């Protein structure tokens, strides 16, 4: 049968992904269909080129950083599990989940993990610190050629000044969390499904 779903997901796999990410059965099958439609090479994994083929992502100033978030250190291909694990960060936090048993490890879409996703967009070398240089580079991606180096530099300096509490001239994850403690992360970093 030559249809797309001839490499259907096995039920066990769907259950595992459900447990790990919290997506529902139908959401997983839909996203699997999406995954296979992006997988032009039909080899069960996505490469960076597969993501770059999405026009709306290609015109996003931080498109490359977001694509990078899907690929673990040093790897060039992401399989469906990895794909879902990263997407899970953007699941909305439902009320009944907030009271779930505290013994299970933190869900991928917790407030902290959402903030971690954003932190990693800034942290280019993955050393768990946002240096002035990294902040400048990301700012440059967001503004293009429209702001001068000096202006951008002073913006970066001001930001680090306000956030840095331990004086190491870079922003750690905890400092990052502190700066953003009032922001409505749950809403702004969540994508709602229609079904």
């Amino acid at each position, binding site marked *: *049968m*030559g*249809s*797309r*779903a001839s490499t259907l997901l096995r039920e066990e796999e769907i259950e595992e992904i459900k447990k790990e990410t919290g997506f529902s*059965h139908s*959401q997983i*099958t*839909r*996203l699997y*269909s*999406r995954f296979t*439609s*992006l997988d032009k090479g039909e080899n069960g994994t996505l490469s960076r080129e597969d*993501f*770059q*083929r*999405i*026009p*709306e*992502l*290609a*015109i*996003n*100033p*931080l*498109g490359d950083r*977001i694509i990078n978030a899907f690929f673990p250190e040093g790897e060039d291909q992401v399989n469906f599990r990895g794909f879902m694990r990263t*997407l899970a960060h*953007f699941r909305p936090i439902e009320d009944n989940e907030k009271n779930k048993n505290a013994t299970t490890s933190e869900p991928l879409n917790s407030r902290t993990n959402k903030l971690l*996703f*954003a932190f990693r*967009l*800034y942290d280019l070398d993955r050393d768990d610190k946002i240096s002035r240089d990294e902040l400048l580079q990301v*700012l440059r991606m*967001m*503004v*293009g050629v*429209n*702001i001068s180096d000096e202006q951008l530099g002073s*913006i970066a300096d*001001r*930001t680090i000044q306000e*956030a840095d509490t331990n004086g190491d001239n870079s*922003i750690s994850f905890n400092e*990052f969390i502190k*700066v*953003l*403690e*009032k*922001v*409505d*992360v749950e809403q*702004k*970093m969540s*994508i*709602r*499904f*229609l*079904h």
Partner: protein
Amino acid sequence: DSHLFPFDNLVCILLGISFTVWFTLLLVFIIVPAIFGVSFGIRRLYMKTLLKIFEWATLRIERGAKEKNHPLYKPYSNAIIAREPTSLEQEIKEIRRSGSNRDFDSASEFEMSDIFYFARRGVESIMDDEVTKRFSAEELESWNLLTRSNYNFHYISLRLTVLWGLGLLIRYGFLLPLRVTLAFTGVGLLVFLTSVIGLLPNGRMKNFLSEKVHLMCYRICVRALTAIITYHDSENKPKNGGICVANHTSPIDVIILASDGCYAMVGQIHGGLMGVIQRSMVKACPHIWFERSEVKDRHLVAKRLSDHVEDKSKLPILIFPEGTCINNTSVMMFKKGSFEIGATVYPVAIKYDPRFGDAFWNSSKFGMVNYLLRMMSSWAIVCSVWYLPPMSREEGEDAVQFANRVKAAIARQGGLVDLLWDGGLKRGKVKDTFKEEQQKLYSKMLVGTQEDRSRS
């Protein structure tokens, strides 16, 4: 070995008889009506019967899935995620306001939380975007007994499998050979007759005969695909000196339109069989074929087109401004070339009914021959054609705005999504200018507030 002889004879006689019967049936029921443009209504009856069978098949699958207690895979025709249409500025202001320690509105020039906007938009487009899904076949909600469109095949019961097998037999054993015969007849007649007509001196007789021959051959081709077409608003049919524009889903679009009216085709000259057909067609009446090298020269193209429309004795030009095949769920950017010439534009909307066979040509997946075989082994091609009222460029409207206006009208009539994206994205990369626009918008948010600050 002479006792084989009478048997041989018998086989020959039988073959001869069946061949004659076959050919007579073909002639009476298909070719003669094609010549005169009448219809026995056989195809519509066929269509109604098929629909009933499809409904039954879908119900069986749903029942099978319920028995096994599994949720059925339901294809999504609309979006899977909720996307708010808020602008960059609006959303970043909202994010900043929610986390602001200050009293005044959006006074900060940069907040680390600004990145949330880009992150979310980016991941949204990974989950579902408006463009990439237009370049692959639309998914159906009911099953039409074609393996190629079934996603729930482990819920098929025995009865359904038998039906499917029967369908396979009918499609490949009966319909396909019939259709291939018709296709060869249609194309062969086209090439032969147009070449003959080409020998006549130019004049009214030649034009009249050329029209009749083109129509007849296209009608035979329509039957070769078992295309069931409903034409709406035929009073708006394109007239001489005009340009007919339509949305593009497949090469079959040409056959569908040209079997109801006479057009001058535009295109690049190909080699092989296609080239033979093109060269003989142009002997009978003036079509506009370009050499490969000429296609790049926009001025040359524009000049030839405008020369053609100025000659009122020549047929209306048929053009597909999207430039590539789209999957018939949306209309993509119209190239402005045909809208700059200043002729009256006759928009046409073509919408295929995907239940009987998917007409979309995914040229990156299938070659032309493969595609035609798939078309001829589907149940039927069912579509609706709407002739929209003619439009002209208005005062103060440039070619791009005019093109968009025509596109919107076609999208509205056909029930298609109107997109600004370029169909060329099927193969090419998106232009950097779009990213630069976003960067400019965001920069304004950072720098703009600095100006306010220095003022206060």
